[in-house]
């Protein structure tokens, strides 16, 4: 047979029935991960955290095989199941799970209790790298959310793990803080080159981190590739919603224009027709169209001489300010969600009841299966 030629450092084939908090679900997949960041993306309940738990050894798969760096840590056939403390895997939980009764320094040094001689130096080094050295005497309840996240990362990485598992570790941080922590993580990754599995359902994080994305749904891999490939062509409704497509509209295929690579879809319960890229569908088929709210242009006069093929007339129903974003709901027969900037809201004097035109590029309209 010879040696495995795969460059994968983490190989997991996992099948597991698991009784989650809400409903029992199922995990059935086979992944091989090379060094670098891989994003596990999918709606909650898709099995992302269960997969991480299986890799870390916190819960055993029903059947399967997990190998790290060629070393088998789980094999249901050969009855191998290495305890989590012997797997040399780092795992940052969503709750971070910092020890509340220990100082930052003791938390970070926890994984080095067996190597007390080197512990001091390594702890110093990593506290510095994650810019939390001034917090070393503090308890977790005395530091901020972003600081906790840095400490949790430092605690995991100080042990020089063979694999790093991150379960939505940046939830609840503002974008700037997120970006700076992601930069630190990238820097660390540049120096150490291990497989990093990053679970998230935030598009921002996918765009910021993404080298490779694996989309999970109902415990199975539904697509994998670059962030663009996976997120911009959602084939399933739930994934589309998870991927941040605010508009998910059902409609009926009217006709196919194969030479142009497009088809026309009439949106349900409305006279609106939109032109979308050609998909696997026949006239009369019921389909769904996913459109990101930020991809829709909004005009207060009928636009002319545009390359965009879809111009829909409508009326603003509501306007809502969310941070630096204004969310408009526009009724064109079908109701669209549109994102504009506060500046645009002022210049165009947008208000509820105002007549507007929506402009949709054909390629911003994504065809979604059933």
């Amino acid at each position, binding site marked *: 047979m010879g040696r495995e030629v795969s460059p994968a450092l983490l190989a997991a084939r996992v099948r597991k029935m698991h009784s989650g908090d809400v409903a029992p679900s199922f995990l059935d997949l086979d992944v091989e991960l090379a060094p670098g960041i891989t994003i596990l993306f999918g709606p909650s309940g898709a099995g992302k955290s269960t997969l991480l738990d299986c890799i870390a050894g*916190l819960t055993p798969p029903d059947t399967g095989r997990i190998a790290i760096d060629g070393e088998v840590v789980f094999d249901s056939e050969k009855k191998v199941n290495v305890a989590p403390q012997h797997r040399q895997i780092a795992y940052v939980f969503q709750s971070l799970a910092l020890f509340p009764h220990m100082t930052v320094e003791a938390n970070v040094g926890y994984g080095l209790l067996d190597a007390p001689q080197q512990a001091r130096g390594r702890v110093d080094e990593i506290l510095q790298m994650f810019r939390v050295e001034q917090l070393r005497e503090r*308890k977790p309840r005395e530091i901020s959310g972003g600081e906790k996240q840095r400490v949790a990362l430092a605690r995991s990485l100080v042990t020089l793990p063979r694999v790093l598992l991150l379960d939505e570790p940046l939830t609840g941080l503002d974008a700037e803080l997120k970006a700076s922590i992601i930069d630190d993580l990238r820097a660390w990754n540049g120096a150490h080159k291990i497989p990093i599995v990053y679970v998230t359902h935030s598009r921002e994080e996918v765009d910021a981190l993404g080298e490779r994305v694996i989309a999970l749904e109902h415990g199975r891999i539904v697509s994998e590739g670059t962030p663009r490939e996976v997120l911009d062509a959602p084939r399933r409704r739930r994934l589309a919603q998870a991927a941040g497509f605010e508009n998910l509209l059902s409609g009926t295929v009217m006709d196919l224009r194969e030479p142009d690579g497009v088809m026309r879809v009439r949106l349900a319960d409305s006279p609106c027709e939109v032109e979308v890229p050609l998909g696997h569908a026949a006239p009369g088929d019921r389909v769904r169209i996913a459109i990101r709210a930020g991809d829709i242009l909004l005009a207060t006069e009928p636009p002319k001489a545009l390359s965009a093929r879809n111009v829909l007339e409508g009326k603003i129903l509501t306007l809502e300010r969310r941070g630096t974003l204004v969310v408009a709901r526009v009724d064109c027969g079908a109701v669209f969600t549109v994102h504009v900037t506060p500046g645009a809201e002022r210049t165009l004097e947008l208000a509820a009841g105002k007549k507007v035109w929506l402009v949709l590029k054909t390629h911003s309209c994504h065809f979604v299966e059933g």
Partner: protein
Amino acid sequence: MNIEALLLSIRLALCVSAILFVVGMPLAYWLAYSRWRWKFLLEAIVALPLVLPPTVLGFYMLLAMGPRGPLGKLWHAAFGHGLAFTFAGLVIASVLYSFPFAVQPLIASFETVDRKLLDASAVLGAGRARTFRRVILPLSVPGILTALVLSFAHTLGEFGVVLMVGGNLAGVTRTVSIDIYDRAQSLDYASANRTALLLLVISFAVLSAVYGINRRSGRRAWLPWAAK
């Protein structure tokens, strides 16, 4: 007031609390974290003294400790004398009687330790012993204090079991509650009242301590001792 009886009771309560601390800790750990399917049977047995009349427990303990009982025989073979109506016999019976008062608070406090902390500890390379010592134990201090205080107080006030197993031997098995009963029977109400009042005050102080500890730990999540 019978100082001899009071000191005997305190000595008994200290012995029982110490033994329960040592025996109760591993049992509580096991009951808190085991997934054994028949665990509930053991939980029921541990809780039994809560509902059983002390005389019933005392009666069976007496049978077991008697010269023909298994415990009595074993004890006789090891130490050359019987177990019934001795201080040692009283300690054994009291340990069983106060068992739930030590084990239940321990289970409760072990169970409230966030499981993710235990997972984090394991992933960071710690085996069960280290996780217990470094994470579970420090986070369970209020529960441990509660267990100690409750088993002490409960033993201090026991009556039925002592009467069945210990009898009423001055300086050996005549505890403070038996003494109160004796005084009241002989119509020495003044003396009975002094002892009874003392016991009342001690019990109240002890329970205040327990509630105080838990209230503080509830408010300052986890760290009652870290208040600076």
